[in-house]
């Protein structure tokens, strides 16, 4: 348990801002993370999004680049 997480402010973007972010970056320079369940992901997701269901997230940090923008939903 990392308590720090409760005090770390996280940036937030609405849909339009997020789209702008994606348009301003090459896909290799931005990450999109889908933390929902596989069934939800399969029913529809933002193109290019990586699926890491929330229960697996804390074990999957290695799959993500820490320095690149990471859009999470």
């Amino acid at each position, binding site marked *: 348990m990392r308590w720090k997480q409760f005090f770390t402010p996280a940036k937030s973007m609405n849909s339009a801002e997020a789209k702008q972010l994606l348009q301003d970056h*090459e896909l290799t320079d931005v990450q999109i993370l889908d933390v929902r369940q596989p069934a939800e992901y399969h029913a529809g997701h933002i193109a290019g999004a990586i699926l890491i269901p*929330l229960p697996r997230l804390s074990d999957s940090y290695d799959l993500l680049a820490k320095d690149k923008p*990471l859009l999470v939903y």
Partner: protein
Amino acid sequence: MATQQLAGNGFTNAINLSGGFKAWTGQSAFDGEEDGLELFTDLSKPTDVLIMAYSLEEGLQDFYNSMVSRAESEEVIKVFTHLAAIEDLHKDRLFKEYTRITGSDDKEKFLAKMQKQMLEGGLTTEEYLARFGTDLERVDEVIGMAMSIEGQALDLYSRAAQRAEDADNKTTLEKIAAEEKTHLERLGELMDSILGENDG
């Protein structure tokens, strides 16, 4: 919550999409709501819409065919072959509709007007590959890409149908939209089956 968790673990550029996926207005695609539709709204004549649609179908068919030649899984080959064949039916239907409206069955002239480089979603193949960063060696990524394109196509036809003033033209676009929906479902099933295999 996930974003805060990530931010607390060194992901300094983690950004929460407020409202989550439900707030996302583009259907399984990067493009804004109006992207792609411009192809149709800029074209005031139903015949131009049909020509554009035909080129989009051909683009997607090319994509499927090229994937068939690269794929190793029999299941993927079977599904993509099927999807490529259906695009032939769509193309025939679009040309018949063009003939009905114009009274001309000069296919050469029709094809000459076609823009081959366009894919169904309204972007070129190169733009698509670059935009999606698709790893063509990965079956699930290829299917995911196909789903994104079909999703765009479905959206495109649906909205073009809504704006069509000619009743028969509207019906044609609606029928194709319905079939794109079936494509999407079929690709989803393929994805589930592939992922199921991979997950053991």
